[in-house]
């Protein structure tokens, strides 16, 4: 044959490389990491963390609500219950130890939940850097699913305030230093007698309910718990769970304001 140049992978024609071909896309080897970090490195892994920490906090929220129902049994019962919490597994474990372990666990869950939520939010913002310029018409996405960040932040702020109110007593003192966290019943009544506090408490719990309504359902999807046997119950579970927690929690300020407790 007349000509001599053999075809090469990179074309001699510069234009050919302007928008080159695609090849070897699966060839890149990624660095091996500790498998939990590796798992957490992906969005799917972060969603597992969201779900698992969510489950932990759901357990707490439910137990917390049930425990507080003791206030309907009277001052002694709830104060005794508070006392009991400090002596969990006592005398095997010294006083307060189990409680602090649980608190640390909860705090850890919360921080992980927040970190995962934050990084997923950043990722999702980047995934649609330019927003739709016309109005969206959502079909399935509901108020709860679309406001997870908002309800989540609301609940977070509420938690901070709630701790200041009932644990540290910063916002729950009548004068200088007379807050006694062991006097749970009095603290509750004193706090909820302030109408704005009760309103905030109720709104925050509604936000929590909305958060749970989507979150408790979402857990099943995120963890891949899916079976035709129970799929139809997932929505019902989430609704019932959110409703029970909200009704229980909201009843406390209502009861105080209505004079049933106090």
């Amino acid at each position, binding site marked *: *044959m*007349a*000509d*001599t*140049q*053999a*075809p*090469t*992978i990179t*074309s*001699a*024609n510069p*234009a*050919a490389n*302007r*928008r080159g*071909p*695609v*090849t*070897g*896309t*699966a*060839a890149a080897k990624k660095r091996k990491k500790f498998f939990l970090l590796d798992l957490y490195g992906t969005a799917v892994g972060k969603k597992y963390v969201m779900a698992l920490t969510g489950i932990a906090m759901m357990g707490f929220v439910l137990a917390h609500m049930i425990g507080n129902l003791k206030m309907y049994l009277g001052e002694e019962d709830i104060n005794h219950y508070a006392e009991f919490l400090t002596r969990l597994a006592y005398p095997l474990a010294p006083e307060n130890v189990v409680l602090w372990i649980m608190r640390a666990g909860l705090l850890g869950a919360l921080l992980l939940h927040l970190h995962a939520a934050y990084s997923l939010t950043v990722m999702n913002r980047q995934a649609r850097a330019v927003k739709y310029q016309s109005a969206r018409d959502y079909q399935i996405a509901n108020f709860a699913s679309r406001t997870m960040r908002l309800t989540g932040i609301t609940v977070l702020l509420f938690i901070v305030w709630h701790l200041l109110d009932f644990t540290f007593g910063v916002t729950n003192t009548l004068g200088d230093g007379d807050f006694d966290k062991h006097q749970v019943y009095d603290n509750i009544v004193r706090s909820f007698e302030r109408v704005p506090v009760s309103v905030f408490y109720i709104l925050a719990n509604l936000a929590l309910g909305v958060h749970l309504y989507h979150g408790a359902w979402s857990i099943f999807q995120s963890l891949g718990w899916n079976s035709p046997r129970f799929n139809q119950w997932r929505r019902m579970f989430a609704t019932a769970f959110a409703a029970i927690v909200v009704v229980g929690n909201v009843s406390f300020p209502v009861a105080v304001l209505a004079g049933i407790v106090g």
Partner: protein
Amino acid sequence: MSTTTIAGLPGSEKLQSKAPNVAVPEMWETFKSDMKLVNPNNKRKFKIIVVGTGLAGASAAATLAELGYQVDAFTFHDSPRRAHSIAAQGGINAAKNYKGDGDSIHRLFYDTIKGGDFRARESNVHRLAEVSVDIIDQMVAQGVPFAREYGGLLDNRSFGGAQVSRTFYARGQTGQQLLIGAYQQMARQIGLGNVRLWNRTELVDTVTVDGRCAGIVTRDLMTGDIVSHAAHAVVLCTGGYGNVFFLSTNAMACNVTAAWRAHRRGAYFANPCYTQIHPTCIPQADDTQSKLTLMSESLRNDGRVWVPKAVGDERAPADIPEDERDYYLERLYPSFGNLAPRDISSRAAKRAVDSGRGVGPLKNGVYLDFSAAIGRLGKDVVEERYGNLFEMYERIAGEDPYSTPMRIYPASHYTMGGLWVDYELMTSIPGLYAAGEANFSDHGANRLGASALMQGLSDGYFVLPYTIGNYLAPLLNKPVPGVDHPEFKAAEAAARQRYQGYLDVKGTRSPDFFHRELGKIIWDYCGMERTEQGLEKALSELPALYEEFQKDLRVTGDGASTNQTLEKAGRVDDFFQLGMLMCRDALERKESCGGHFRAEYQDDEGEAKRDDENFAHVAAWEWTGDPMQSIRNVEPLDFTTVHLATRSYK
């Protein structure tokens, strides 16, 4: 006009099929035993260009890459998965005989030859039937979710033109599933770095140096860049030219450009007049219609075709009593009934409509009625079998086929003609191959249902990877022309000039306008029924319209970014030239066979009358610079294994 009929003369020297000189059933084994091989370590020294990523292209690219060749694959789509193979609905044939109903390789071979009205090459068709069984194995291994019976074994359905159940299917989306299977294999090779994929890149020319195909010239549809690509061999898997009719069941982008550009560079174009009209499409609804939608032929398994007996019967279908309906397919072809082959069913529908008994608002359809099947099998079974097709029909036609019969009418669907290839699928340009619908080889004058997928995959997976080595082996370590060769430079310059030319006409009509006008002429005179007079008329109108196209075209926008109007202009240009050749081929073939029905050549009952004495050959056209002056060469067809018989489905 000039006609150079050399029908009946010995075949042209160039048109040697090169099939081994043994009995037909032994040919493929003999070829495989005798062919030259390329050592596995040497395969990487060869570069092969595969144009098109449908079933044939994706399977060829994947297999060639697995073997070790350097492969460059080109698609004008955004992704290889979009190729029009995806739209095939009904199924894929294979002589597995899983049903034990008497199927065999010979029977599939015979059915295909007979279905093609004895106008296909025995050697190629027998090979197709042989490898059909391997295709099913291969696709199942790749994870194609074919329909299964409750026992877990593969299910089959029957299809037009066959008396056995040999069609494998995946709901009404068989083409999609097979294409995704082949695409995934190719994707794997892209991922591994063995295939380089050029997407949104269209072939605009092929380049021949010293009588061998040296590569191609492409146009980047995003940037307008004209780029040369050199290779040891080029495979065109670029589909058929059914869109020459404007309204067809083909996807909007399907075009003849790649095959046509190769033809203009010396590849013979065979049997362009063999076009298939599919009997079950949704009739045209209005003037804005851009394409026709096919309803799978498998519907004819359970649907009954009828029209009112009386002309001008305006009653709703449900109000027409049984004895006032004409189930014309069952009446005319009792043994095949509603499953009569495509060409026969199509013409019967045309006659029914032409006789004034058409149904629907425009009186341009016939009924395909499922009420008997729903009564016999229940709605659930019918839904299981055809649910997605029924939904599709309802979306398009706005009527519910469970309660009112579908309206159907034939539409252009597939083209049996294409680039002439030999037994090795090589065109008349050494080193340039054509596979799948782009070649002419396996279906004769009419293709049976569920055979297109079979052919595409057969060519790509099991034929080309063998035959291409036979060509490449002697080229080992020999230099081939690079993209700096003057032939490449000349082709690039011509392509640039061509596309700039469309922009520079600055006339008044869009490419679509001309395409629609072209389609009307081709459909009216070179469609389901052709006459000498009509074809002469078309051949006088087409050059005039083409001239108008060249003078009055308007392409807005520019050539340096995505411009679909410009892309369309190039494709319509090539369709014009092909259309002329189609009409000439139809005019020269003075017989009726398969999809080519000449009204002059029919028997007393209106059935096609073949002329085996004068036309048992392939007509392969040679480019001379003007489609009206192309030279007709012939390759005689020898039938040693089957006997030429009148094709009867009565």
